[in-house]
């Protein structure tokens, strides 16, 4: 039916005027959202690039300094610590969440009565507020009398970790909390992926005598590859920008043991008012996320081509 509209009716206005009308109508729909989006997202995003090359404190006038902020960054120990911690967090959060989400999805992808209740329960942590999550997990991780250490002691661990009070164990505690919180969200994505796998594949494999493990390895995992790729990209972006959980749970401490890049941006930029310097940190954060994502896309393309 689409050709009817493109066929000029005898009384239709000339083509050019009609094209203009399309543009005007199209923009009129987009404009209310676009004004806000351009002003409060696009402009700040572009400004962030320029700011990184300025020397601008909240009290002084902006001055173009080229790469000076990045040189300062390179010499800043806080930056090295934050970079290492961000990589540490990502290295823990990404694989653990992926495995937990996939495990949950497979366990909950059954046609059993009441399975919907279990799915709901597994998803609930994701929409619980971070402050509540932090309060609960901080007491669970309480080094002296928290339930986690009580259980560890009952299991015979003589000297359980001091978790959020220890520089070595604070980051693992944050990672465990974030995996618990996020796995339900990625579980939903995996459930959607699992439901696209044709049942015939499994039937054929069973006829051939394939074990459960073989069916998982040779059918489920390969069929889920597009989902896994998507989950991986989302998890990576999410991991590198982690901020709120850290601010609420440990505030970067004890010491600098959980200080991450996004928090350094916040501290230098908003708390200290060093706009130029913090934007340099932000730019590095952005470049890292972009690089990792582009690499993931490349690897995915190469594999799909095979």
């Amino acid at each position, binding site marked *: 039916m689409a050709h009817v509209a493109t066929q000029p009716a005898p009384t239709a206005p000339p083509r050019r005027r009609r094209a203009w009308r399309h543009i005007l109508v199209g923009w009129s*729909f987009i404009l209310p959202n676009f004004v806000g989006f351009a002003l409060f997202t696009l402009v700040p*995003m572009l400004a962030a690039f320029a700011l990184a090359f300025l020397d601008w404190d909240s009290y002084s006038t902006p001055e173009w300094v080229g790469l000076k902020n990045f040189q300062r960054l390179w010499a800043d120990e806080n930056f090295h610590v934050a970079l290492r911690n961000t990589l540490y967090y990502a290295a823990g959060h990404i694989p653990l969440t992926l495995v937990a989400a996939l495990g949950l999805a497979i366990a909950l992808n059954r*046609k059993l009565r009441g399975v*919907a209740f*279990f799915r709901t329960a597994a998803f609930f942590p994701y929409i619980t507020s971070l402050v509540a999550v932090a309060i609960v997990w901080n007491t669970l991780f309480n080094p002296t009398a928290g339930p986690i250490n009580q259980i560890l002691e009952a299991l015979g661990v003589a000297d359980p970790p001091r978790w959020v009070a220890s520089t070595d164990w604070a980051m693992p505690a944050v990672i465990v909390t974030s995996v618990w919180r996020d796995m339900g969200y990625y579980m939903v994505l995996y459930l959607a992926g699992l439901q696209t796998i044709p049942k015939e594949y499994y039937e054929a494999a069973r006829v051939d005598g394939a074990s459960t493990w073989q069916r998982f390895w040779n059918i489920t995992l390969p069929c889920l590859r597009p989902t896994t790729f998507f989950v991986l990209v989302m998890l990576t972006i999410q991991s590198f920008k982690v901020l*709120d959980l850290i601010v609420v749970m440990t505030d970067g401490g004890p010491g600098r043991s959980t200080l991450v890049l996004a928090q350094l941006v916040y501290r230098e930029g908003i708390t200290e008012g060093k706009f130029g310097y913090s934007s340099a940190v932000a730019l590095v954060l952005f470049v890292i996320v972009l690089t990792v994502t582009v690499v993931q896309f490349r690897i995915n393309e190469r594999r799909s081509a095979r």
Partner: protein
Amino acid sequence: MTTLHDAPPAAARPRPPATSEHGDRSGGSPVRKALAYLSLTVVTLLVLVPFAWMLSSSLKRDNEVFAIPIQWIPEELRWSNFVDIWERIPLLTYLGNSAFLSMTITLLQVLTGSFAAYGFSKVRFPGRDALFLAYIATIAVPWQAYMVPQYIMMQQAELTNTYWAIILLQAFGAFGVFLMRQYYMSIPDDLCEAARIDGLSEYGIYWRIILPLSKPALASLALLTFVNTWNDYMGPFIYLSDNELWTVQLGLRSFVGQYDADYAMMMTGAVVSVLPILVIFLLGQRYFIRGIATSGLKG
């Protein structure tokens, strides 16, 4: 309690011809079924233990929270904690502020987002797809990378410490446009063409045909936006310094800082802050799941 239905397959994928391998095990032996339930229960309990801990601690005396061994059900249920907390912090003000911000932002997001999504999916004009690409691209850029320029803008406009800062920054996100467009793409264009031939204007088509058809997607967007705004911590943390303007999240966080050792009270506060979300979630969880499965993205 309503329950979570099968998550739909992600948009643009064909409907599944069949369920996957675990789907057809329901007809298995009773032993197998019992084992399946057992494993589901264990997994779910592990997920829910922190909530049980929160609820149990909220009904205890402060010195009972860390009792050894752990007491899951306190001897005496102290419901009075839920009365006392209203006197300790201005919870009603915080809840009201959170509700106001969440509702305003949700309304703006749904209105402008669905309107723009119509332009991006049903009206053809040059430059449309390039513009949409700009929307998509911003979703992948970490917000933390441009929060400082946003802050400077708000500071220059003297909007810090007002709700304007939060509303303006959160109401026009790319997320709503993206989610609604995904849904509109699944509505056949023939429907709009037929309406055009019948003489309906584009605004009429949006208002009288597309909008009524997209109720599930609107519900998904509204719920996701509401919950995200209600739970947001960094936005209010950066912009709101006056106690009267605080949201529940800020109020609760400062309560923890002030009464660091009052664990039972802290848990009571946490329960109160989670309850509204629990109710909303149970009412509309179908739409949450659908929204996430179609968009795969968070705001």
